[in-house]
């Protein structure tokens, strides 16, 4: 898994999906991101072709692990599709069987209410997912969340350059960061996802740790207003001056 994360970083090995398939020992891997105001799932990369076709199928039908992950934000694990009740995915199940898909697991990309996308893993002949595969897929989804929260990869399929380490952005383990994100989303009238971006942009711009900025927001020493401001994050500090 470390190798995959490295290859994501360096953009080596050409195809990140192929690297993921190898590392997860899966039959296929697909990554779709949620884009636009209506949060449509757009496939970003898939390997092999079977994964691409399954991805298109599940999001066209709106049935399957992918759409369920998008709705609930929780992992969906069905490594053996024969054991899924037919009425759960009535159209998808027979179609998937025709494609030769045996089992599927979906992993959310996101933080709390923030939903970035979904990683769909096709299972192999043995129709199971091991604890190790689960842990690896979850770690991969977390790393990819970090990449896409950094604003990378959503324009096209290119993987981030070496200056953008894929991985969990630092500071996100602190409750105060998520509290501040919620406050900023109301202050600016933006989505929770954009609020986190603005918070992180401000921390980056002011060269201070994310947690410190978040503390200022929660203590109301710092407010993000939408006044005309050259600073992208546009915060307003009541004590005068910025941040």
């Amino acid at each position, binding site marked *: 898994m470390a190798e995959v994360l490295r290859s994501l970083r360096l953009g080596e090995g050409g195809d990140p999906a192929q690297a993921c398939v190898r590392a997860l020992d899966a039959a296929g891997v697909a990554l779709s991101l949620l884009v636009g105001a209506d949060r449509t799932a757009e496939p970003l990369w898939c390997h092999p072709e079977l994964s691409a076709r399954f991805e298109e199928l599940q999001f066209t039908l709106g049935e399957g692990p992918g759409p369920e992950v998008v709705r609930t934000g929780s992992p969906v694990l*069905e490594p053996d599709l024969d054991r899924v009740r037919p009425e759960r995915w009535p159209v998808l199940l027979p179609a998937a069987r025709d494609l030769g898909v045996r089992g599927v697991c979906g992993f959310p990309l996101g933080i709390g*209410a923030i939903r970035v996308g979904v990683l769909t893993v096709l299972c192999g002949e043995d129709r199971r997912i091991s604890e190790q595969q689960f842990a690896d897929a979850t*770690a991969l989804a977390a790393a990819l969340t970090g990449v896409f929260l950094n604003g990378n990869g959503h324009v096209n399929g290119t993987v981030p350059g070496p200056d953008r380490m894929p991985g969990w952005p630092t500071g996100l383990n*602190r*409750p105060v960061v998520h*509290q501040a994100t*919620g406050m900023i*989303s109301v202050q600016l009238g933006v989505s929770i996802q954009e609020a986190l971006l603005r918070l992180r942009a401000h921390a980056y711009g002011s060269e201070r740790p994310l947690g410190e900025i978040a503390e200022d927001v929660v203590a109301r020493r710092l407010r993000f207003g939408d006044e005309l401001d050259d600073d992208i994050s546009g915060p307003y500090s009541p004590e005068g001056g910025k941040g």
Partner: protein
Amino acid sequence: MSAMARERRLAEIFVEVADSLVEDFDVIDLLHRLSARCVELLDVSAAGILLADAHGELQIIAASDEHTRLLELLALQHDQGPCVECYRTGAARTNIDLTRGEVTAAWPRFAAQARETGYVITHAIPLRLRNRVVGALNLFQTAPHRLGDDDIALAQALADVATIAVLQQRTLEQSHVENSQLQNALTSRILIEQVKGVLAERWNTSVDEAFAAFRSYARARHLRLSDLAAQIIEGDFDTRTIPAPHVS
């Protein structure tokens, strides 16, 4: 609390938990209640429950009170603290004297912040699932009395109940429920922090006050905290229907 009163209270708690596990329960709220019961039964000052995430880092899932000060102290243990040691070794670490530098040398930042909050003793009890450790129960005391073996055994029993609660199967759809449950609980926790911020800003209150109002509303209507939080953040819920806390 007398031994008999305590035994009766413990029985009540187990019944309360068993009742909660029957339906599609709110894991965050249940763990919060359990933390509060730890404080009550063990006569400690505060309790927190941490779960390991996909990276093996400990994250807060619930605490006996939601004051940001306590949450932040628990959050420090993603990389240092007695719970990290407990999680790695699988062994309980009890009666740790926070005032003795040589005892806390491995995690100075945690110890300093704990002392600042007024705590002098801490304990870390593993959350065990068969042969695997999934997290830790953290106890804090402002008074320097030691917990005896009976207290520690009781703490371990409560930690075991917490583990069962987290890993309780919610739906039969999922064949790999245990790992997903851990993941869901961690996601729910972050969601709740986000909604605290949203409500605090709308109501112009502290995040702690906002959470108290949010929780009483959810409890009175038997709504899961994470479900209500998700609805509020999505804008699918009119927060004016929740009685706002009085601005202090």
